[in-house]
């Protein structure tokens, strides 16, 4: 057992646990922020739920994906890219701090199109981004070009967009690496914690969970779908709601696909993941046959040779989705020291969360891009859509 966990157990017995900062939520977002905080030298406590929790982090495609994001909000594109460029150093740091290789590969990624309309739309988006950001390399590949790059591509794929910035990682290894790294840097993890209350005022926060109390001058809400209720306690607005995605996982296959694609990727273990869906079904994380069939059809259309590959698992997970699909990053104005950090791209943004959000939480300057991500933007009559 790690020293910090032992220490955690001791303190737990005493009833009140003090620290410099409390992170509520031990998923990809919470542990990335927690790791960053521990690296900053902050005495960090991370609170996590039990084995049965919804856990968006466990339902993850593993993409470190840049292309197309933020075509309607350039700061999101900048923010995403800032994370992607930091990812290699981040992966090295995780390796050094945990011994876990998260298998980061950034060979560039493909987004397949099955019609000319899709191709035009893709092109338009990526062009918009290039115009807005300047440095935004991308290629539109027709069927012939695509076949030259991905020989196994299916005949009904009309083309694809490609950017060299995209990559993928093993999301479960990432979660484990983050847990281990954070703890090795001194962060204390408490599991099986169900937060009952969050109280506080500027610089003094108290999290109550059963008979346990955790106090700190700063608190980070990284509790995914649990954020809305917590946010209200500290003057923040974080209206996230569940959005279901389903994924198929195949048996292990010898390596045939290095590049991640938006709907099919081969993991470092050889299994093939196929996704996905975006469904508004409330808190239902069951799979549904017709969606799985559609995913299978799309996968087989993309790479026809997959038709003989066996499906071993299918799962569904609930994304933490804001009304416009963009993250919510904000420090409370009424309760300074309380932060909300939530998004549905916990893998892509993990580097930014550790390396740019954590310093901000500890009093550093707010990253430029974050201005547009305040929760108040939803306090209007405007109708939002997270489809991008």
């Amino acid at each position, binding site marked *: 057992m790690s020293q910090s966990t032992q220490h955690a157990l001791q303190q737990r017995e005493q009833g009140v646990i003090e620290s410099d900062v409390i992170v509520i939520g031990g998923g990809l977002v919470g542990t990335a922020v927690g790791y960053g905080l521990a690296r900053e030298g902050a005495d960090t406590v991370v609170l996590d739920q039990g*084995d*049965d929790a919804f856990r968006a982090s*466990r339902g993850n495609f593993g993409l470190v994906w840049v292309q197309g994001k933020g075509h309607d909000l350039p700061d999101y594109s900048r923010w995403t890219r800032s994370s992607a460029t930091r990812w290699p150093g981040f992966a090295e740091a995780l390796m050094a701090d945990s011994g876990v290789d998260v298998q980061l590969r950034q060979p560039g990624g493909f987004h397949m199109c099955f019609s000319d309309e899709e191709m035009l739309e893709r092109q338009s988006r990526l062009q918009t981004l290039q115009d807005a950001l300047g440095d935004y390399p991308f290629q539109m590949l027709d069927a012939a070009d695509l076949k030259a790059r991905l020989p196994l591509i299916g005949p009904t794929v009309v083309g694809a967009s490609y950017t060299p910035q995209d990559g993928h990682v093993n999301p*479960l290894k990432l*979660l484990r690496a983050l847990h281990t790294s954070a703890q090795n840097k001194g962060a204390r993890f408490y599991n099986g914690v169900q937060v009952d209350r969050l109280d506080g005022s500027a610089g003094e926060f108290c999290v109550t969970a059963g008979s346990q109390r955790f106090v700190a001058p700063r608190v980070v809400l990284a509790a995914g779908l649990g954020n809305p209720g917590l946010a209200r306690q500290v003057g923040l607005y974080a209206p996230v709601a569940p959005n279901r995605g389903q994924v198929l996982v195949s048996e292990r296959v010898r390596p045939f696909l290095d590049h991640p694609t938006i709907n099919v990727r081969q993991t470092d273990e050889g299994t093939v993941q*196929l996704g996905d869906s975006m469904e508004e079904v409330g808190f239902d994380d069951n799979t549904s046959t017709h969606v799985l*069939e559609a995913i299978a059809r799309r996968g087989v259309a993309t790479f026809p040779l997959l038709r003989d590959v066996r499906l*071993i698992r299918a799962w569904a997970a609930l994304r933490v989705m804001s009304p416009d699909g963009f993250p919510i990053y904000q420090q409370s104005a009424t309760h300074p020291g309380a932060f909300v950090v939530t998004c549905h791209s916990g893998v892509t943004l993990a580097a930014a969360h550790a390396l740019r959000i954590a310093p901000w939480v500890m009093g550093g300057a707010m990253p430029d891009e974050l201005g547009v991500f305040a929760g108040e933007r939803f306090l209007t009559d405007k109708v939002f859509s997270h489809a991008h």
Partner: protein
Amino acid sequence: MSHSAVDVVVVGAGAAGMAGAVALAGLGLQVVLLDEQGSPGGQIYRGITLAPLSRRDLLGPDYAHGNVLAQALASSSVRYEKGAAVWQVTRDHQVSYLRDGRLHTLQAKAVLLATGAMERPFPIPGWTLPGVMSAGAAQILLKSAGLAPSEPVVLAGCGPLLYLLGWQYLRAGVPIKALVDTTRPEDYWRARRHLFAALRAWPYLRKGLELMRSLRSAHIPHYTAAEQLAVEGDEAATALTFTVAGKAQRIESRCVLLHQGVVPNIQFSQSLRARHYWDADQLCFSPVVDAWGELDVPGVFAAGDGAGIGGAQAAALQGELAGLGIAQRLGAIEAGQRDPRAATLRERLALNLRIRPFLDALYQPREENRIPADNVMVCRCEEVTAGDLRKFVALGCAGPNQAKSFGRCGMGPCQGRMCGLTVTEVIAKARGVTAEEVGYYRIRPPIKPITLGELAGD
């Protein structure tokens, strides 16, 4: 994918499935019975319709009894589909299966899960080596192919099936090198509470005693209270080592048959998110069912060993009871007609279950064979050891589902069948909590593998 509507789908053509399907069809309901094997019988009655007389004789009268059920099935109106691998059962009573390379879905009004039992895992060092099999596997080789070990074989563990196999091998002239029994004096002591009930189930008890007597009079080396079982070998099993009263023993053999009881196969009931409970006597999870076998998922019933270990006779009775329960639910029989029939069945069921507490207590598998040392493989598919699991717990892993994320444990093709119970118990012990609190893997379809092309509807 083909879609059609039926009254009832029964999953599994073992004792419970055959009895249930026949009962339902007898009451005029439209029944489809699905089973992945090529002939009925499940595992206890495996190969019953194909076994030559000599084999049936060898296997004993209990096995032969399966033929009665198989005949009843054959002469019923049940639509029996063999070679049908069910990959999904939904809470809305849709049953999807793969047969002859094509997917089919049936919409039923009720579903009877009769998926039976499987061997409890026996995680000891070397248990993944070629040449190590479960006693049940050896019995299936006998039942389905008339095969038995070609060299003197080692039987290790505990439980009626192990001794039954030994007895069957004796009758077949198969040499048994040793019976390495993990049962200890304290197990007998623990079981004594149930002895009175066991005596009331005298036919069972007598059968068991006769069986043991035959084994003894054959002078098979019988080691008792065996501990620290391990299989030796690099590329394949070469010997079984163990200790008795602290003294090290080693028995050379290329074929080691392990057994420490059977447990319900709960893949379907778990995938339905039905409530399960931890049976503290049988040390396994069983679905919570009412008096008719209904799960807490309306319209889904479970009968036979898949609902709780009770043996073949009990399974058939439970199957029939579930059939009556379903039939009344679907309006094919009035409660007034159903209940007297059910009462008779319940009496017989109680009789058949009388021996169980005694057997469960006497043959409770030893903790060291359920919660192994660090170097023992727990998840065979992904090659995760008990030590790995304990490291995950130290890192904050609270249960089996986090264990999946921490180290792929349970993510292989067997979908946790071979490791689920072990993982739950290892984590429970490491955390100092109950197995009930730790829970079980989240099981999701496909319960049996299907190809992407089959799912896509190619």
